[in-house]
Protein backbone atom coordinates (compact mmCIF):
# COMPACT_ATOMS: atom_id res chain seq x y z
CA UNK A 1 0.00 0.00 0.00
CA UNK A 2 1.24 3.43 -0.91
CA UNK A 3 2.34 5.75 1.87
CA UNK A 4 1.06 9.19 0.90
CA UNK A 5 3.45 12.09 1.43
CA UNK A 6 3.95 15.66 0.33
CA UNK A 7 7.28 16.81 -1.06
CA UNK A 8 8.08 20.42 -1.89
CA UNK A 9 11.06 20.96 -4.18
CA UNK A 10 12.42 24.31 -3.04
CA UNK A 11 14.60 24.56 -6.17
CA UNK A 12 11.41 24.75 -8.23
CA UNK A 13 8.89 26.60 -6.07
CA UNK A 14 8.37 30.10 -7.47
CA UNK A 15 6.07 31.32 -4.69
CA UNK A 16 3.08 31.72 -7.01
CA UNK A 17 0.62 30.56 -4.31
CA UNK A 18 -1.22 28.53 -6.94
CA UNK A 19 -1.39 25.60 -4.50
CA UNK A 20 -2.98 27.82 -1.85
CA UNK A 21 -5.59 29.02 -4.32
CA UNK A 22 -6.23 25.54 -5.71
CA UNK A 23 -6.81 24.22 -2.20
CA UNK A 24 -9.19 27.02 -1.27
CA UNK A 25 -11.13 26.55 -4.50
CA UNK A 26 -11.28 22.78 -4.36
CA UNK A 27 -12.68 22.58 -0.84
CA UNK A 28 -14.64 25.84 -0.48
CA UNK A 29 -12.42 26.88 2.43
CA UNK A 30 -13.94 29.72 4.46
CA UNK A 31 -12.25 33.04 5.12
CA UNK A 32 -9.56 32.98 7.77
CA UNK A 33 -8.72 29.31 7.22
CA UNK A 34 -5.66 28.35 5.20
CA UNK A 35 -4.99 24.68 4.87
CA UNK A 36 -1.89 25.42 2.82
CA UNK A 37 0.50 28.36 2.71
CA UNK A 38 3.74 29.31 0.99
CA UNK A 39 6.63 30.55 3.12
CA UNK A 40 9.72 32.22 1.69
CA UNK A 41 13.01 31.91 3.56
CA UNK A 42 15.30 34.92 3.33
CA UNK A 43 12.96 36.79 1.04
CA UNK A 44 14.88 39.20 -1.19
CA UNK A 45 18.28 37.78 -0.28
CA UNK A 46 20.40 35.80 -2.78
CA UNK A 47 19.62 32.12 -2.32
CA UNK A 48 16.05 32.70 -1.09
CA UNK A 49 13.85 29.62 -1.19
CA UNK A 50 10.09 29.18 -1.05
CA UNK A 51 8.26 26.21 0.41
CA UNK A 52 4.62 25.26 0.26
CA UNK A 53 3.50 23.80 3.56
CA UNK A 54 0.34 22.14 4.84
CA UNK A 55 -0.37 19.11 7.00
CA UNK A 56 2.48 16.68 6.27
CA UNK A 57 0.50 13.63 7.45
CA UNK A 58 3.23 12.67 9.91
CA UNK A 59 4.12 9.11 10.79
CA UNK A 60 3.96 9.79 14.54
CA UNK A 61 1.47 12.63 14.30
CA UNK A 62 1.63 14.96 17.34
CA UNK A 63 -1.95 16.14 16.78
CA UNK A 64 -3.16 12.57 17.02
CA UNK A 65 -1.22 12.00 20.23
CA UNK A 66 -2.47 15.06 22.11
CA UNK A 67 -6.12 15.19 20.99
CA UNK A 68 -8.15 14.86 24.23
CA UNK A 69 -11.07 13.20 22.44
CA UNK A 70 -8.93 11.06 20.10
CA UNK A 71 -10.70 12.38 17.00
CA UNK A 72 -7.77 11.71 14.63
CA UNK A 73 -7.29 8.57 12.62
CA UNK A 74 -4.90 7.39 9.98
CA UNK A 75 -5.96 5.81 6.70
CA UNK A 76 -4.26 2.77 5.24
CA UNK A 77 -2.36 5.16 2.98
CA UNK A 78 -0.89 7.06 5.94
CA UNK A 79 -3.15 10.10 5.56
CA UNK A 80 -3.95 11.72 8.91
CA UNK A 81 -7.64 12.64 9.04
CA UNK A 82 -9.96 13.77 11.80
CA UNK A 83 -13.61 13.51 12.74
CA UNK A 84 -15.23 16.93 13.08
CA UNK A 85 -18.22 15.39 14.84
CA UNK A 86 -15.91 14.46 17.73
CA UNK A 87 -13.63 17.54 17.67
CA UNK A 88 -14.29 19.90 20.60
CA UNK A 89 -12.16 22.81 19.34
CA UNK A 90 -9.70 22.85 22.24
CA UNK A 91 -6.65 23.82 20.17
CA UNK A 92 -4.26 21.16 21.51
CA UNK A 93 -3.41 19.90 18.00
CA UNK A 94 -2.54 23.48 17.10
CA UNK A 95 -0.11 23.65 20.03
CA UNK A 96 1.50 20.34 19.11
CA UNK A 97 1.81 20.58 15.31
CA UNK A 98 5.28 21.71 14.15
CA UNK A 99 3.92 22.77 10.73
CA UNK A 100 1.07 24.98 11.93
CA UNK A 101 -1.42 22.87 9.99
CA UNK A 102 -4.50 22.86 12.26
CA UNK A 103 -6.74 25.84 11.60
CA UNK A 104 -9.59 27.11 13.74
CA UNK A 105 -12.45 29.11 12.29
CA UNK A 106 -13.59 31.55 14.94
CA UNK A 107 -16.95 30.28 16.15
CA UNK A 108 -18.06 33.09 18.42
CA UNK A 109 -17.02 36.15 20.39
CA UNK A 110 -13.72 36.37 22.27
CA UNK A 111 -11.88 34.03 19.91
CA UNK A 112 -13.94 30.93 20.73
CA UNK A 113 -12.55 28.18 18.53
CA UNK A 114 -14.75 26.26 16.16
CA UNK A 115 -14.05 22.74 15.00
CA UNK A 116 -10.53 22.24 13.69
CA UNK A 117 -9.94 22.23 9.95
CA UNK A 118 -6.82 21.05 8.20
CA UNK A 119 -5.46 19.59 4.98
CA UNK A 120 -6.99 16.18 4.31
CA UNK A 121 -4.60 15.21 1.50
CA UNK A 122 -7.85 15.61 -0.50
CA UNK A 123 -9.09 12.45 1.20
CA UNK A 124 -12.24 13.78 2.90
CA UNK A 125 -13.31 12.51 6.28
CA UNK A 126 -15.04 9.61 8.00
CA UNK A 127 -18.32 10.08 6.12
CA UNK A 128 -19.12 7.95 3.05
CA UNK A 129 -16.91 8.98 0.12
CA UNK A 130 -18.03 11.98 -1.93
CA UNK A 131 -21.25 12.60 -0.05
CA UNK A 132 -22.59 16.12 0.43
CA UNK A 133 -22.01 15.76 4.16
CA UNK A 134 -18.36 14.90 3.64
CA UNK A 135 -17.87 17.77 1.20
CA UNK A 136 -19.41 20.27 3.59
CA UNK A 137 -17.14 19.29 6.47
CA UNK A 138 -13.89 18.32 4.79
CA UNK A 139 -14.05 19.30 1.13
CA UNK A 140 -13.67 17.11 -1.92
CA UNK A 141 -12.43 13.53 -1.61
CA UNK A 142 -10.17 13.36 -4.66
CA UNK A 143 -8.33 10.25 -3.51
CA UNK A 144 -11.61 8.33 -3.63
CA UNK A 145 -11.99 9.56 -7.24
CA UNK A 146 -8.53 8.23 -8.07
CA UNK A 147 -6.94 11.69 -8.18
CA UNK A 148 -4.04 13.18 -6.26
CA UNK A 149 -4.26 16.33 -4.09
CA UNK A 150 -5.41 19.42 -5.99
CA UNK A 151 -2.50 21.59 -4.79
CA UNK A 152 0.13 19.22 -6.19
CA UNK A 153 -1.75 18.58 -9.44
CA UNK A 154 -2.16 22.33 -9.93
CA UNK A 155 1.51 23.18 -9.29
CA UNK A 156 2.82 24.82 -12.47
CA UNK A 157 6.49 24.04 -11.89
CA UNK A 158 5.83 20.63 -10.34
CA UNK A 159 7.60 21.80 -7.23
CA UNK A 160 4.90 20.45 -4.97
CA UNK A 161 4.49 16.72 -5.29
CA UNK A 162 1.88 14.65 -3.47
CA UNK A 163 1.49 10.90 -3.64
CA UNK A 164 3.22 7.64 -2.81
CA UNK A 165 6.35 8.54 -0.86
CA UNK A 166 8.52 5.99 -2.69
CA UNK A 167 7.53 7.36 -6.09
CA UNK A 168 8.13 10.94 -4.91
CA UNK A 169 11.56 9.97 -3.61
CA UNK A 170 12.46 8.43 -6.98
CA UNK A 171 11.35 11.53 -8.89
CA UNK A 172 13.25 13.74 -6.52
CA UNK A 173 16.40 11.63 -6.67
CA UNK A 174 16.37 11.86 -10.45
CA UNK A 175 15.94 15.63 -10.29
CA UNK A 176 18.78 16.06 -7.83
CA UNK A 177 21.08 13.85 -9.93
CA UNK A 178 20.34 15.85 -13.07
CA UNK A 179 20.69 19.32 -11.62
CA UNK A 180 23.45 18.37 -9.19
CA UNK A 181 22.11 20.41 -6.27
CA UNK A 182 19.15 21.05 -4.01
CA UNK A 183 18.91 17.72 -2.26
CA UNK A 184 17.16 19.11 0.80
CA UNK A 185 13.85 17.31 1.22
CA UNK A 186 12.22 19.88 3.40
CA UNK A 187 10.21 18.69 6.39
CA UNK A 188 10.60 14.95 5.87
CA UNK A 189 12.75 14.46 8.92
CA UNK A 190 10.19 16.22 11.12
CA UNK A 191 7.17 14.55 9.57
CA UNK A 192 8.26 11.04 8.73
CA UNK A 193 11.24 10.38 11.02
CA UNK A 194 14.48 8.71 10.00
CA UNK A 195 14.39 6.47 6.91
CA UNK A 196 13.28 2.94 7.67
CA UNK A 197 10.96 4.07 10.47
CA UNK A 198 7.98 5.12 8.41
CA UNK A 199 5.04 2.90 9.24
CA UNK A 200 2.24 3.42 6.75
CA UNK A 201 -0.11 1.17 8.68
CA UNK A 202 -2.78 2.95 10.67
CA UNK A 203 -2.00 3.17 14.37
CA UNK A 204 -5.34 2.21 15.82
CA UNK A 205 -7.59 3.62 13.12
CA UNK A 206 -10.78 2.37 14.81
CA UNK A 207 -13.45 4.86 15.76
CA UNK A 208 -17.11 4.90 16.52
Amino acid at each position, binding site marked *: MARMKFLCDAERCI*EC*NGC*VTACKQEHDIPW*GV*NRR*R*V*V*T*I*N*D*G*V*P*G*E*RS*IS*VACMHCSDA*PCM*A*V*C*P*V*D*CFYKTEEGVVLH*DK*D*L*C*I*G*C*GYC*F*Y*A*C*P*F*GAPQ*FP*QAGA*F*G*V*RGKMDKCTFCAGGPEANNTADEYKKYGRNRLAEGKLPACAEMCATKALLGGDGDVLADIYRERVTKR*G*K*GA*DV*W*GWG*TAYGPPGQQPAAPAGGA*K*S
Partner: protein
Amino acid sequence: MASLTLKRAAGAWLAALVLGLAASAQAQSPAANPPEADFAKQQQAQQQSQPLNNQPVWKEVRSGQAQTSTVRGRETNVLIQSQGQTWRAARVTVSTALGGLIAALVLVLFGYYFWRGSIELHGAPTGRVIERFSPAKRIAHWSMGLTFVALGVTGLILTFGKSLLLPIIGYTLFSWLATLAKNVHNFTGPVFSVALLIFIFMYAKDNLPKAYDLQWMAKFGGMLDRSGNTHVPSGKFNAGEKGLFWSLVVVVSLVLVVTGYILNFPNFDQTRETMQLANIVHLVAALLGIAMACLHIYMGTVGMKGALDAMRYGYVDETWAKEHHGLWYDDVMSGKVPRGTEPAAPTLPQGRPA
Protein backbone atom coordinates in the same frame (compact mmCIF):
# COMPACT_ATOMS: atom_id res chain seq x y z
CA MET B 1 15.73 5.91 24.82
CA ALA B 2 13.64 8.25 22.74
CA SER B 3 11.30 8.96 25.62
CA LEU B 4 14.25 9.70 27.90
CA THR B 5 15.57 12.18 25.39
CA LEU B 6 12.12 13.73 25.16
CA LYS B 7 11.85 13.99 28.92
CA ARG B 8 15.26 15.62 29.13
CA ALA B 9 14.34 17.98 26.35
CA ALA B 10 11.09 18.77 28.15
CA GLY B 11 12.88 19.54 31.39
CA ALA B 12 15.48 21.66 29.68
CA TRP B 13 12.85 23.50 27.72
CA LEU B 14 10.75 24.26 30.80
CA ALA B 15 13.76 25.47 32.73
CA ALA B 16 14.90 27.54 29.80
CA LEU B 17 11.49 29.14 29.42
CA VAL B 18 11.04 29.86 33.11
CA LEU B 19 14.43 31.51 33.22
CA GLY B 20 14.45 32.80 29.71
CA LEU B 21 11.50 35.16 29.46
CA ALA B 22 13.71 38.14 30.18
CA ALA B 23 16.61 36.66 28.25
CA SER B 24 14.52 36.26 25.10
CA ALA B 25 13.76 39.95 25.12
CA GLN B 26 17.50 40.57 25.38
CA ALA B 27 18.33 38.12 22.65
CA GLN B 28 16.01 39.79 20.21
CA SER B 29 17.32 43.28 20.62
CA PRO B 30 20.58 42.91 18.61
CA ALA B 31 18.66 41.50 15.64
CA ALA B 32 18.28 44.89 14.06
CA ASN B 33 19.05 45.75 10.44
CA PRO B 34 22.87 45.61 10.19
CA PRO B 35 23.14 41.82 10.68
CA GLU B 36 20.52 41.27 7.99
CA ALA B 37 22.50 43.39 5.55
CA ASP B 38 25.61 41.40 6.51
CA PHE B 39 23.74 38.18 5.89
CA ALA B 40 22.71 39.36 2.42
CA LYS B 41 26.35 40.08 1.61
CA GLN B 42 27.48 36.71 2.94
CA GLN B 43 24.80 35.01 0.89
CA GLN B 44 25.92 36.87 -2.23
CA ALA B 45 29.47 35.66 -1.64
CA GLN B 46 28.20 32.14 -0.93
CA GLN B 47 26.32 32.06 -4.25
CA GLN B 48 29.54 33.01 -6.02
CA SER B 49 31.94 30.69 -4.23
CA GLN B 50 29.70 27.69 -3.53
CA PRO B 51 26.68 27.93 -5.86
CA LEU B 52 25.50 24.44 -4.97
CA ASN B 53 25.63 24.86 -1.22
CA ASN B 54 22.64 26.70 0.23
CA GLN B 55 23.28 25.61 3.81
CA PRO B 56 22.85 29.02 5.49
CA VAL B 57 19.29 29.22 4.18
CA TRP B 58 18.35 25.69 5.22
CA LYS B 59 19.82 26.23 8.65
CA GLU B 60 16.98 28.64 9.35
CA VAL B 61 14.19 26.23 8.50
CA ARG B 62 14.18 24.47 11.86
CA SER B 63 14.94 27.64 13.83
CA GLY B 64 11.30 28.66 14.19
CA GLN B 65 12.25 32.12 12.92
CA ALA B 66 9.62 34.22 11.24
CA GLN B 67 10.06 34.20 7.45
CA THR B 68 7.87 35.74 4.77
CA SER B 69 4.41 34.59 3.73
CA THR B 70 1.63 36.25 1.81
CA VAL B 71 -0.91 34.21 3.76
CA ARG B 72 -2.03 36.48 6.56
CA GLY B 73 -2.49 35.13 10.04
CA ARG B 74 -0.75 34.41 13.29
CA GLU B 75 2.64 32.73 12.77
CA THR B 76 1.82 31.69 9.20
CA ASN B 77 5.38 32.73 8.34
CA VAL B 78 6.96 30.16 10.69
CA LEU B 79 7.84 26.94 8.87
CA ILE B 80 8.58 24.56 11.74
CA GLN B 81 7.78 25.23 15.39
CA SER B 82 9.67 22.53 17.24
CA GLN B 83 8.59 23.30 20.82
CA GLY B 84 5.24 21.59 20.29
CA GLN B 85 7.02 18.27 20.55
CA THR B 86 8.47 19.30 23.90
CA TRP B 87 5.07 20.50 25.05
CA ARG B 88 3.60 17.15 24.07
CA ALA B 89 6.22 15.25 26.08
CA ALA B 90 6.06 17.58 29.09
CA ARG B 91 2.29 17.35 29.22
CA VAL B 92 2.30 13.58 29.52
CA THR B 93 5.01 13.54 32.20
CA VAL B 94 3.42 16.29 34.27
CA SER B 95 -0.15 15.02 34.10
CA THR B 96 0.85 11.45 34.91
CA ALA B 97 3.02 12.42 37.88
CA LEU B 98 0.64 14.95 39.41
CA GLY B 99 -2.48 12.93 38.57
CA GLY B 100 -0.85 10.07 40.48
CA LEU B 101 -0.21 12.45 43.36
CA ILE B 102 -3.91 13.36 43.55
CA ALA B 103 -4.95 9.71 43.44
CA ALA B 104 -2.45 8.88 46.21
CA LEU B 105 -3.66 11.80 48.31
CA VAL B 106 -7.27 10.69 48.06
CA LEU B 107 -6.20 7.23 49.26
CA VAL B 108 -4.24 8.78 52.14
CA LEU B 109 -7.27 10.84 53.15
CA PHE B 110 -9.45 7.73 53.15
CA GLY B 111 -6.85 6.00 55.31
CA TYR B 112 -6.63 9.01 57.63
CA TYR B 113 -10.39 9.03 58.07
CA PHE B 114 -10.46 5.39 59.06
CA TRP B 115 -7.54 5.90 61.46
CA ARG B 116 -8.61 9.15 63.03
CA GLY B 117 -12.31 9.49 62.26
CA SER B 118 -14.14 12.75 62.39
CA ILE B 119 -12.77 15.25 64.89
CA GLU B 120 -15.49 15.63 67.50
CA LEU B 121 -16.09 18.22 70.19
CA HIS B 122 -14.78 17.36 73.67
CA GLY B 123 -17.16 19.54 75.65
CA ALA B 124 -20.91 19.75 75.38
CA PRO B 125 -22.29 22.39 73.05
CA THR B 126 -23.52 25.42 74.96
CA GLY B 127 -26.35 26.28 72.62
CA ARG B 128 -25.02 29.83 72.38
CA VAL B 129 -23.67 30.63 68.94
CA ILE B 130 -21.17 33.09 67.50
CA GLU B 131 -21.37 34.40 63.94
CA ARG B 132 -18.28 33.10 62.13
CA PHE B 133 -19.03 34.08 58.54
CA SER B 134 -21.38 36.87 57.46
CA PRO B 135 -23.70 36.12 54.53
CA ALA B 136 -21.44 38.20 52.23
CA LYS B 137 -18.40 36.15 53.25
CA ARG B 138 -20.26 32.91 52.75
CA ILE B 139 -21.43 33.97 49.30
CA ALA B 140 -17.84 34.93 48.42
CA HIS B 141 -16.58 31.55 49.64
CA TRP B 142 -19.15 29.48 47.82
CA SER B 143 -18.93 31.49 44.58
CA MET B 144 -15.22 30.83 44.49
CA GLY B 145 -15.45 27.29 45.82
CA LEU B 146 -18.20 26.02 43.55
CA THR B 147 -16.67 27.56 40.42
CA PHE B 148 -13.32 26.03 41.45
CA VAL B 149 -14.92 22.60 41.75
CA ALA B 150 -16.65 23.02 38.38
CA LEU B 151 -13.35 24.02 36.80
CA GLY B 152 -11.50 21.20 38.53
CA VAL B 153 -13.93 18.49 37.49
CA THR B 154 -14.17 19.67 33.87
CA GLY B 155 -10.41 20.11 33.71
CA LEU B 156 -9.85 16.58 34.97
CA ILE B 157 -12.30 15.26 32.36
CA LEU B 158 -10.39 17.03 29.60
CA THR B 159 -6.98 15.93 30.90
CA PHE B 160 -7.58 12.32 31.90
CA GLY B 161 -10.85 11.48 30.12
CA LYS B 162 -9.10 10.12 27.06
CA SER B 163 -7.39 7.43 29.13
CA LEU B 164 -10.00 6.83 31.82
CA LEU B 165 -13.47 7.61 30.42
CA LEU B 166 -13.25 7.21 26.65
CA PRO B 167 -12.57 3.45 26.74
CA ILE B 168 -15.66 2.99 28.91
CA ILE B 169 -18.28 5.33 27.45
CA GLY B 170 -17.14 5.39 23.81
CA TYR B 171 -16.20 8.09 21.33
CA THR B 172 -19.53 9.81 20.71
CA LEU B 173 -20.60 10.07 24.33
CA PHE B 174 -17.17 11.16 25.47
CA SER B 175 -17.04 13.81 22.75
CA TRP B 176 -20.32 15.27 24.04
CA LEU B 177 -19.04 15.18 27.58
CA ALA B 178 -15.76 16.83 26.57
CA THR B 179 -17.59 19.54 24.59
CA LEU B 180 -19.68 20.26 27.67
CA ALA B 181 -16.58 20.19 29.88
CA LYS B 182 -14.68 22.56 27.58
CA ASN B 183 -17.52 25.07 27.45
CA VAL B 184 -18.25 24.93 31.18
CA HIS B 185 -14.51 25.31 31.83
CA ASN B 186 -14.07 28.25 29.47
CA PHE B 187 -17.12 30.16 30.65
CA THR B 188 -16.73 29.44 34.39
CA GLY B 189 -13.08 30.50 34.37
CA PRO B 190 -13.69 34.25 34.13
CA VAL B 191 -16.44 34.01 36.79
CA PHE B 192 -13.97 32.23 39.06
CA SER B 193 -11.39 34.95 38.53
CA VAL B 194 -13.82 37.63 39.77
CA ALA B 195 -14.99 35.52 42.72
CA LEU B 196 -11.35 34.82 43.58
CA LEU B 197 -10.39 38.48 43.78
CA ILE B 198 -13.41 39.29 45.96
CA PHE B 199 -12.59 36.35 48.24
CA ILE B 200 -8.94 37.34 48.62
CA PHE B 201 -9.97 40.91 49.42
CA MET B 202 -12.51 39.81 52.07
CA TYR B 203 -10.43 37.12 53.77
CA ALA B 204 -6.86 38.42 53.60
CA LYS B 205 -6.89 40.30 56.93
CA ASP B 206 -7.86 37.30 59.06
CA ASN B 207 -5.26 35.19 57.28
CA LEU B 208 -2.24 37.35 58.08
CA PRO B 209 0.37 35.09 59.71
CA LYS B 210 0.96 35.48 63.45
CA ALA B 211 3.79 34.25 65.68
CA TYR B 212 1.58 31.63 67.38
CA ASP B 213 0.97 29.98 64.02
CA LEU B 214 4.45 28.43 64.37
CA GLN B 215 3.20 26.37 67.33
CA TRP B 216 0.37 25.07 65.20
CA MET B 217 2.83 24.19 62.46
CA ALA B 218 5.16 22.41 64.88
CA LYS B 219 2.38 20.08 66.07
CA PHE B 220 0.57 20.07 62.71
CA GLY B 221 -2.52 21.30 64.53
CA GLY B 222 -2.73 18.14 66.58
CA MET B 223 -4.06 16.35 63.55
CA LEU B 224 -1.69 13.43 64.06
CA ASP B 225 -2.78 12.94 67.68
CA ARG B 226 -5.51 10.35 67.64
CA SER B 227 -6.72 11.17 71.15
CA GLY B 228 -7.40 14.77 70.11
CA ASN B 229 -5.86 16.11 73.33
CA THR B 230 -3.16 18.17 71.64
CA HIS B 231 -4.16 21.80 71.77
CA VAL B 232 -2.61 24.48 69.65
CA PRO B 233 -3.41 28.18 69.59
CA SER B 234 -5.24 29.54 66.61
CA GLY B 235 -6.99 32.74 65.75
CA LYS B 236 -10.00 33.04 63.51
CA PHE B 237 -8.10 30.83 61.08
CA ASN B 238 -5.50 28.30 62.11
CA ALA B 239 -2.07 28.08 60.52
CA GLY B 240 -3.19 25.29 58.20
CA GLU B 241 -6.05 27.36 56.88
CA LYS B 242 -3.76 30.34 56.50
CA GLY B 243 -1.23 28.24 54.62
CA LEU B 244 -3.94 27.04 52.29
CA PHE B 245 -5.19 30.58 51.82
CA TRP B 246 -1.81 31.94 50.73
CA SER B 247 -0.77 28.90 48.69
CA LEU B 248 -3.96 27.60 47.09
CA VAL B 249 -6.10 30.71 46.95
CA VAL B 250 -3.53 33.42 46.36
CA VAL B 251 -0.55 31.89 44.54
CA VAL B 252 -1.92 28.81 42.76
CA SER B 253 -5.30 30.30 41.86
CA LEU B 254 -3.83 33.56 40.58
CA VAL B 255 -1.38 31.57 38.43
CA LEU B 256 -4.35 29.56 37.14
CA VAL B 257 -6.29 32.72 36.36
CA VAL B 258 -3.43 34.39 34.47
CA THR B 259 -2.51 31.32 32.42
CA GLY B 260 -6.21 30.54 31.96
CA TYR B 261 -6.86 33.93 30.40
CA ILE B 262 -3.90 33.42 28.04
CA LEU B 263 -5.39 30.10 26.89
CA ASN B 264 -9.04 31.14 26.93
CA PHE B 265 -8.65 34.22 24.74
CA PRO B 266 -6.45 33.20 21.80
CA ASN B 267 -7.45 36.33 19.89
CA PHE B 268 -4.70 38.56 21.20
CA ASP B 269 -2.10 37.19 18.80
CA GLN B 270 -0.22 35.34 21.51
CA THR B 271 2.13 32.83 19.92
CA ARG B 272 1.99 29.05 20.17
CA GLU B 273 5.03 29.08 22.42
CA THR B 274 3.28 31.35 24.91
CA MET B 275 0.23 29.09 24.91
CA GLN B 276 2.29 25.91 25.24
CA LEU B 277 4.07 27.35 28.26
CA ALA B 278 0.80 28.69 29.70
CA ASN B 279 -0.78 25.27 29.23
CA ILE B 280 1.97 23.45 31.13
CA VAL B 281 1.98 26.00 33.96
CA HIS B 282 -1.83 25.82 34.06
CA LEU B 283 -1.67 22.03 34.24
CA VAL B 284 0.89 21.99 37.07
CA ALA B 285 -0.93 24.66 39.07
CA ALA B 286 -4.32 23.02 38.49
CA LEU B 287 -3.25 19.56 39.62
CA LEU B 288 -1.41 20.92 42.67
CA GLY B 289 -4.43 23.13 43.42
CA ILE B 290 -6.84 20.21 43.16
CA ALA B 291 -4.65 18.22 45.55
CA MET B 292 -4.70 21.10 48.06
CA ALA B 293 -8.45 21.55 47.60
CA CYS B 294 -8.93 17.86 48.43
CA LEU B 295 -7.32 18.51 51.83
CA HIS B 296 -9.55 21.51 52.42
CA ILE B 297 -12.72 19.74 51.32
CA TYR B 298 -11.86 16.77 53.55
CA MET B 299 -11.37 18.93 56.65
CA GLY B 300 -14.38 21.07 55.83
CA THR B 301 -16.77 18.14 55.47
CA VAL B 302 -16.17 14.74 57.04
CA GLY B 303 -12.88 15.65 58.73
CA MET B 304 -14.28 17.89 61.44
CA LYS B 305 -17.70 18.12 63.01
CA GLY B 306 -19.21 21.58 62.75
CA ALA B 307 -16.86 22.90 60.09
CA LEU B 308 -19.33 22.62 57.22
CA ASP B 309 -22.13 24.18 59.29
CA ALA B 310 -19.91 27.18 59.99
CA MET B 311 -19.64 27.94 56.28
CA ARG B 312 -23.15 26.78 55.49
CA TYR B 313 -25.13 28.63 58.17
CA GLY B 314 -22.52 31.12 59.31
CA TYR B 315 -22.71 30.26 63.04
CA VAL B 316 -20.67 28.08 65.36
CA ASP B 317 -21.31 26.99 68.92
CA GLU B 318 -19.17 28.63 71.60
CA THR B 319 -17.70 25.25 72.52
CA TRP B 320 -16.60 24.69 68.91
CA ALA B 321 -15.01 28.14 68.79
CA LYS B 322 -13.22 27.56 72.11
CA GLU B 323 -11.84 24.17 71.13
CA HIS B 324 -10.79 24.91 67.58
CA HIS B 325 -10.11 28.64 67.46
CA GLY B 326 -9.29 29.55 71.06
CA LEU B 327 -7.70 32.92 70.48
CA TRP B 328 -10.59 34.03 68.28
CA TYR B 329 -13.03 32.81 70.97
CA ASP B 330 -11.16 34.83 73.60
CA ASP B 331 -11.30 37.92 71.38
CA VAL B 332 -15.02 37.50 70.82
CA MET B 333 -15.66 36.95 74.54
CA SER B 334 -13.60 39.98 75.55
CA GLY B 335 -15.35 42.07 72.94
CA LYS B 336 -12.23 42.78 70.88
CA VAL B 337 -13.90 41.17 67.91
CA PRO B 338 -17.61 41.77 67.31
CA ARG B 339 -19.78 38.80 68.11
CA GLY B 340 -21.83 39.32 64.98
CA THR B 341 -25.57 39.24 64.56
CA GLU B 342 -27.77 36.72 66.27
CA PRO B 343 -29.14 34.03 64.00
CA ALA B 344 -32.76 34.03 62.96
CA ALA B 345 -34.56 31.35 64.93
CA PRO B 346 -34.70 28.49 62.42
CA THR B 347 -31.18 28.97 61.05
CA LEU B 348 -29.63 26.04 62.84
CA PRO B 349 -31.08 22.64 62.20
CA GLN B 350 -32.34 20.79 65.23
CA GLY B 351 -30.19 18.11 66.78
CA ARG B 352 -26.93 19.40 65.34
CA PRO B 353 -24.02 20.20 67.62
CA ALA B 354 -23.89 23.57 65.82
